[in-house]
């Protein structure tokens, strides 16, 4: 399938291994990525905190660019924060035709306009995180059938990121779409074991890292510690901002909570890529601050099971 692909800022900045691994994984799942390289930052909720209309207009621009990609079925992102921040703006834009027209007026000089229902068939513009796309568009059975190297014996703890699990109504989480359980489903489809722990749907602390560093790192450290206690080999997250606090800041978090953590944190496409037969290095796993190789015995639990 062809998607208008929004990688976000951090996946091309401080977690380049995320964007890189997504590019490697996409062809193995027959996803054609048309990168929205002209689009702008979603504002990560902070621009909305400054001026809501500004955030709404900036994201309407991104949606409008996505709608211009010929043949793209939907827009795909690889960041929980992008999903949540863009979803919040889309909710307002979709709620009021008058507001939409007002925002589109600002976009008009560039020849862009965001349409709620581009086909006119009563549909909605769709923007899905790679996690949702995996489960809802590709399907768990299809994913399972493409696994070349099941993650047998690998104990994986999910870490969602707030923006992709709350608020439930805006994110369309219900009995039919248990999007707050998709990570567990994907881990199982890839042959791994799910480790449940207290912090899996809590906050990584990143939004307040410059405002209250201690509280921020205490959050990261506590959730990582819970995962250690639950005997996880690694965590997996669909959010690069969570990854910054959980991986890049992990040595600092260890200091704040006063214990060794050494918990590797994988980006979602990296975990998928491993199971689809890609090598850890191709997926940029050597770039993490907490080296995945430090904990996972690749020869027995992952690489060894190559089919």
């Amino acid at each position, binding site marked *: 399938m062809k998607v208008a692909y929004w990688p976000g*800022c*951090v996946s*091309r*900045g*401080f977690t*380049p*291994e995320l964007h890189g691994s997504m590019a490697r994984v996409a062809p193995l799942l027959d996803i054609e990525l048309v990168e929205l*390289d*002209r689009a*702008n*930052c979603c*504002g*990560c909720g*902070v*621009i*909305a*905190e*400054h*001026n*809501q*209309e*500004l955030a*709404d207009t*900036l994201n309407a*621009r991104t949606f409008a660019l996505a709608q211009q990609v010929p043949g793209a079925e939907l827009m795909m992102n690889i960041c929980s924060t992008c999903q*949540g921040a863009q979803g919040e703006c889309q*909710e*307002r834009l*979709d*709620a*009021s*035709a*008058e*507001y939409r027209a*007002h925002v589109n007026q*600002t976009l008009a*000089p560039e020849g862009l306009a965001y349409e709620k229902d581009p086909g006119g068939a009563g549909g909605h513009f769709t923007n899905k995180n790679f996690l949702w796309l995996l489960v809802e568009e590709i399907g768990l059975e299809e994913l399972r059938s493409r696994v070349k190297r099941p993650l047998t014996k690998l104990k994986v703890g999910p870490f969602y990121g*707030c*923006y992709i699990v*709350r608020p*439930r109504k805006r994110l369309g989480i219900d009995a039919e779409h248990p999007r707050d359980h998709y990570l567990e489903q994907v881990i199982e489809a890839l042959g791994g074991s799910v480790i449940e722990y207290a912090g899996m749907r*809590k*906050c990584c*602390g990143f*939004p*307040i890292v*410059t*405002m*209250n560093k*201690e*509280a*921020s790192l205490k*959050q990261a450290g506590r959730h990582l510690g819970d995962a250690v206690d639950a005997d996880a080999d690694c965590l997996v997250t669909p959010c690069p901002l969570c990854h910054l606090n959980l991986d*890049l*800041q992990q*040595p*600092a978090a260890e200091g704040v909570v006063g214990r060794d953590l050494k918990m590797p944190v994988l980006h979602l496409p990296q975990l998928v890529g491993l199971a689809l037969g890609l090598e850890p290095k191709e997926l940029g796993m050597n*770039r*993490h*601050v907490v080296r995945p190789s430090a904990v996972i015995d690749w020869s027995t639990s992952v690489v060894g099971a190559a089919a």
Partner: protein
Amino acid sequence: MAETHRPPEQFTLRVRRYDPESGEAPYWDEHTVELEPHRSVLEGILQAKARFDGSIGIRCSCRAAICGSCGVRINGEPGLACHTHLDHARDGAQGGVIEIEPMGNMPVIKDLIVDMDAVHWKKIQRVTPWLLAKQPTPEREYVVPRESMVDITQSMACIQCGACVSDCLAMEVDPGFIGPAALAKAYRFVGDPRDDRRYERLLDLSHDPQGIYDCTHCFKCVDACPKDVNPMGQIMRLRRIAGSDEHIVDPNNGERHEQAITTLVRDYGLLHEAELVPRSYGGNSWFGKLHPAAGKELLSLLPSAIKAITRGKIGVKLALLGHKIPDSDLKAVKRIYQTVESRPERYELNLYISGEDEDERTPVGATAGGGGGGDDPATAGDRSAS
């Protein structure tokens, strides 16, 4: 309507029991009650109490989701016991057993009763929860614009149940955080045109290290609230007014962090992460990094930064120059900033008040209590002076 005639069914409740005075550890009790499925979890607890164990501690009064007494956690999520149907609770329960616990972030007095005084009410007191009226008092009533009162109806809808306090993730690691309920209450007065101390209130709440900038933006309170108060949204409004309208620069880097992100996206189109920390600590320009506060923070980040660079995670060029979108697009982004930021008033659409048009969903504004804002989003939206 047919639902009300469904016959009684059996529901198993797993209740967390704890009596701190007993010296015994907490434990779980299971009781099976028989009620019609649309009855509330509270009715289930009360039946268990009446039939099996009169010692179960639960606080309740109105049984109609307005007194705010019966806040508990049901299947791990905070809410009102009287506002949750038994069948819905069973649908969300593991193994079909409805798990009921006391709320979090507050000490347990007994079983499902927590000490609201020790935490929730102390925090409410903290924000001076009464009107500090403008003087001189008018001879008759204060005359205020209708929209400005509609704007605060959302925070006025709070019933003080403590569900948002229970699961606040910032409070979990920083118990001194003023928290969602009290900050929503603070907005109720900051947004009230009759209040004379808007600036002082905002100065206080932004300078407090456990004030508005301690919120970690996790949306927990948004989902927890049984009254759609959206406490986190009210906190963001406090930040917006403090920073953009009152130009309050706080010692917690809150305003600088917001300015830094907003400016960096204007200038680069994307987030230039390496600039974010120095600007948040030292001031919103390239020279921010020369500020002692920024220097100290950058120094503390040096070990992580070196590791990230040696592992090839972060390129030196990227760290220094950042990444940009193409020039023509950057021009378009700058034009958007110029258009929106030069408006005499901020245009803020609040769906709680305006509801949704052209949609099959019921407008949320119908429950706002303020009579709704009509169909015109331009008048229904909150237009604050900037």
